[in-house]
């Protein structure tokens, strides 16, 4: 049992009131971590204290819990309410979950991103449930005139054993609303958890399997028009002119105009990436009519000159970014990256004397790894609904960073943020893409202009060729081995277009005496954005493939070799900035070794291993494969993950399985190339996605059991599987795979 404070200074995280018609309603800030430093608290914006989630107990005992974060398949809409229900001590079957809208608070964290939803809200959600329980008990104590500490609860009932009294939560809820919110509440011991750690079904499962309108693209509204856009066909191009004479007269077409997405004077925030500043817009009565007009319109595009834009990054001071002109091609990208690797780069970390280690090495191994741009390809194409009036706006759609989008929209429309309501619809996939919501701005501007409700829908082609990709990356690893095959030096030279993937302080930093990590970047006009486990999704692949090769050169078992390094990092780490816990890291490797029957599978099946740490969680995987008709057949993936306490194990496992399948798909087939600025793929006929036949026959997920507060889950299983796959493919074919997608090296 731990005690947590429900207030900072005089401001409570929780507000209570009576529910109209009887019952208790508790509003709470789910972000309210009780562990904030005074410094952090001082820096909180005022609005942070706005109450932005609630739980409601009606007098008939029904409990409604608002789920704050948008749902896009991470299952937070089930997991977050489970945490509240646990501390409240109710029967999960009595709980109704509702999606919270975004219209209460400017600075909350209704984010999907960084796998942080549960981690940052864990304590706040527990506190909300515990406070409500406390108030219900206090109300009963008052009514029965018995001491508070003699009262216990069980599944929605309050009991006083000595006097044999009991009452349901519903019956005492109205009285509880009059009890003041406690300053401090006790949280359950993790060993007393009854809901957390048990598998609960997706609260929206039935709606999904019966085709209910859950997604942004399903939005319908009286008098709603459909809008589509045309963006330049190539990066480096902009709109020159368009001729709407034909399309204007086509059936069902209401208007054709150009839309300027951002004002020139606007300082862009981190997620305001906008690839094409001006797009041609067609508005009509129905999707098919607008699609036809889109095919018929004549548009001229022209190359743009180099320009600059003001940018406020997520952290740090404002920057001026230069967007270079030019129509870029993938072949040039490769040449440039190869060149950069030979130049002097920025040294990000240096331990010991790497130069000396390489001079005195008895073996040096150097390998270069590359990966292309990737499109997110959410199954639900980008879309948004907007109904903008002269002084207010009603918006709805799938967003990962809703509050930031709201601010951008308010600025662009000239409508105060309090007058903008955003409903958060379920996301048909996000993976980072829906953090960059230029399409939400476009929808709002179009609606403002049309003075009508509008649903903007991107075609698959608009979506895939519209930018905001996973960057292209390259890294060269160089290792020095001494005559006893000890790894004495490591040099990493990493870069990308336009960002570097380097994490200089991650493993194996800390495990090697002589270490250097360098970084470089190449500018581009191709836009990029977060993509499931940004940067890690490449670094894990390269690093863990390289370690496999080093282990082999040193004549060591790949798992034992990694464990040796981790043992060194745990007992006698090099440097002080290493950002991982070597023991937890080793823990997942040991678990996966045991569960995968490492080295003991029948000889037809080839195994590859990898492990990685990102988003505060540790994941290790073993891929088992056979090789049939020049293709990998993945028999099994065994995954061990340490993400602290697991809220909803079966759903958590589903998310891990998804990360694994997605990782294998992207490693084998994912690729977007460019020629003269034009993306060379635009739909699923040429952009290959993993399908059922190629996905693993079996996936087994094992969670490390511990009492550590929950950490990331949506991303950590994604990066390492690229390498576990490559290492298994090596065992199966004798060939190393250095360049993604691996399918290119398979024939």
């Amino acid at each position: 049992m731990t005690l947590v404070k429900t207030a900072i200074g005089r401001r409570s995280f929780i507000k209570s009131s009576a529910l109209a018609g009887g019952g208790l309603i508790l509003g709470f800030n789910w972000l309210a971590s009780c562990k904030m430093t005074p410094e952090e608290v001082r820096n909180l914006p005022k609005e942070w204290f706005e109450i932005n989630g609630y739980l409601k107990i009606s007098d008939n005992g029904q409990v409604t819990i608002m789920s704050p974060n948008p749902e896009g398949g991470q299952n937070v809409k089930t997991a977050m309410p489970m945490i509240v229900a646990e501390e409240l001590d109710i029967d999960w079957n009595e709980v109704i979950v509702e999606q919270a809208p975004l219209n209460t608070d400017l600075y909350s964290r209704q984010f999907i991103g960084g796998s942080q939803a549960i981690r940052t809200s864990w304590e706040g959600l527990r506190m909300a449930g515990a406070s409500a329980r406390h108030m219900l008990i206090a109300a009963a104590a008052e009514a029965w005139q018995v001491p508070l500490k003699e009262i216990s609860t069980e599944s929605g009932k309050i009991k006083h054993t000595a006097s044999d009294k009991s009452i349901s939560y519903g019956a005492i809820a109205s009285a509880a609303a009059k009890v003041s919110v406690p300053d401090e509440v006790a949280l359950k011991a993790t060993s007393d958890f009854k809901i957390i750690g048990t598998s609960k079904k997706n609260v929206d499962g039935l709606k999904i399997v019966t085709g209910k309108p859950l997604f942004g693209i399903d939005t319908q509204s009286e008098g709603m028009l459909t809008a589509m856009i045309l963006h330049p066909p190539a990066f480096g191009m902009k709109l020159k002119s368009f001729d709407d004479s034909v399309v204007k007269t086509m059936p069902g077409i209401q208007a054709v105009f150009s839309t300027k997405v951002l004002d020139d004077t606007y300082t862009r925030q981190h997620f305001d990436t906008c690839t094409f500043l001006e797009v041609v817009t067609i508005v009509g009565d129905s999707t098919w009519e607008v699609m036809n007009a889109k095919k018929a319109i004549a548009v001229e595009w022209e190359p743009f000159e180099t320009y600059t834009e003001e940018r406020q990054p997520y952290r740090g001071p404002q920057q001026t970014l230069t967007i270079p002109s030019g129509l870029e091609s993938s072949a040039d990208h490769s040449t440039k990256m190869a060149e950069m690797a030979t130049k002097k780069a920025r040294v990000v970390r240096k331990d010991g004397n790497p130069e000396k280690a390489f001079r005195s090495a008895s073996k040096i191994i150097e390998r270069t790894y590359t990966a292309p741009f990737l499109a997110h390809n959410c199954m639900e194409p980008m879309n948004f609904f907007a109904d903008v009036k002269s002084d207010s706006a009603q918006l709805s759609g799938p967003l990962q960073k809703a509050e930031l989008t709201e601010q951008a929209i308010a600025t662009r429309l000239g409508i105060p943020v309090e007058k903008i309501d955003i409903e958060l619809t379920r996301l048909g996939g996000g993976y980072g893409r829906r953090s960059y919501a230029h399409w939400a701005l476009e929808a709002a501007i179009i609606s403002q202009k049309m003075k009508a409700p509008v649903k903007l829908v991107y075609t698959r082609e608009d979506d895939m060729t519209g930018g905001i990709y996973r960057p292209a990356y390259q890294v060269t690893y160089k290792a020095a081995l001494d005559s006893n095959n000890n790894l004495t030096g490591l040099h990493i030279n990493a870069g990308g277009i336009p960002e570097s993937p380097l994490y200089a302080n991650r493993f194996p930093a800390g495990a090697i005496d002589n270490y250097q990590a360098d970084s470089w970047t190449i500018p581009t006009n191709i836009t990029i954005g977060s993509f499931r486990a940004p940067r890690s999704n490449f670094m894990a692949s390269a690093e863990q493939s390289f370690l496999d090769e080093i282990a082999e050169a040193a004549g060591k078992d790949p798992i034992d070799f990694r464990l040796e390094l981790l043992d060194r990092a745990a007992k006698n780490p090099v440097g002080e900035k290493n950002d991982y816990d070597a023991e937890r890291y080793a823990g997942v490797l040991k678990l996966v070794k045991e569960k995968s029957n490492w080295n003991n599978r029948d000889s037809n099946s080839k195994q590859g291993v990898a492990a990685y740490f990102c988003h505060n969680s540790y994941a290790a995987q073993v891929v088992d494969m056979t090789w049939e008709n020049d293709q990998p057949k993945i028999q099994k993936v065994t995954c061990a993950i340490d993400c602290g306490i697991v809220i909803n194990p079966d759903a958590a496992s589903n998310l891990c399985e998804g990360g694994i399948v997605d990782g294998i798909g992207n490693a084998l087939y994912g690729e977007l190339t460019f020629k003269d600025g034009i993306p060379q793929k635009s739909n699923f006929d040429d952009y290959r996605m993993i399908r059922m036949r190629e996905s693993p026959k079996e996936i087994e997920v094992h969670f490390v059991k511990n009492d550590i507060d929950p950490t990331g889950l949506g991303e950590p299983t994604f990066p390492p599987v690229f390498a576990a796959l490559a290492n298994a493919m090596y065992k199966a074919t004798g060939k190393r795979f250095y360049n993604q997608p691996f399918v290119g090296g398979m024939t």
Partner: protein
Amino acid sequence: MAKFNLNINGKERELDVDPTTPMLWVLRDHIKLVGTKYGCGIAQCGACTVHLDGNAVRSCQLPISSVGDKEITTIEGLSEKGDHPVQQAWLEVDVPQCGYCQAGQIMTASALLEKNPNPSDEEIETAMNGNICRCGTYTRIKKAVKIAANSINA
């Protein structure tokens, strides 16, 4: 524009639309049945799968003019209360992540089991290979198809 009489989920519907309009958009825009999803528009992803006289077809490639008096079933019409064995199996295995592809997956799986109530792994893969799931729920889908097959055969 042209007039059409359609049979959708057992109900007669009269419509006046462009005859080239794909059933996907007829369903979504004109009849407001939005369970059938748009994913690619070119018969590559399976998100738009419906049943046409019991066969799984891609509604994005099915112009309204070619439907005639054939019966169309969408995810909304697969069962009254979400209790079709395939839907039940999907819930039991808790298949969906984002859920966007799942209507198409369920329509493809239910058409398969209608014809072949006892499919092998290979047959399941062949039937389901046209349905993309970006969230990567394939292993669960396969498991759910088998559970549905068992419950149909029971």
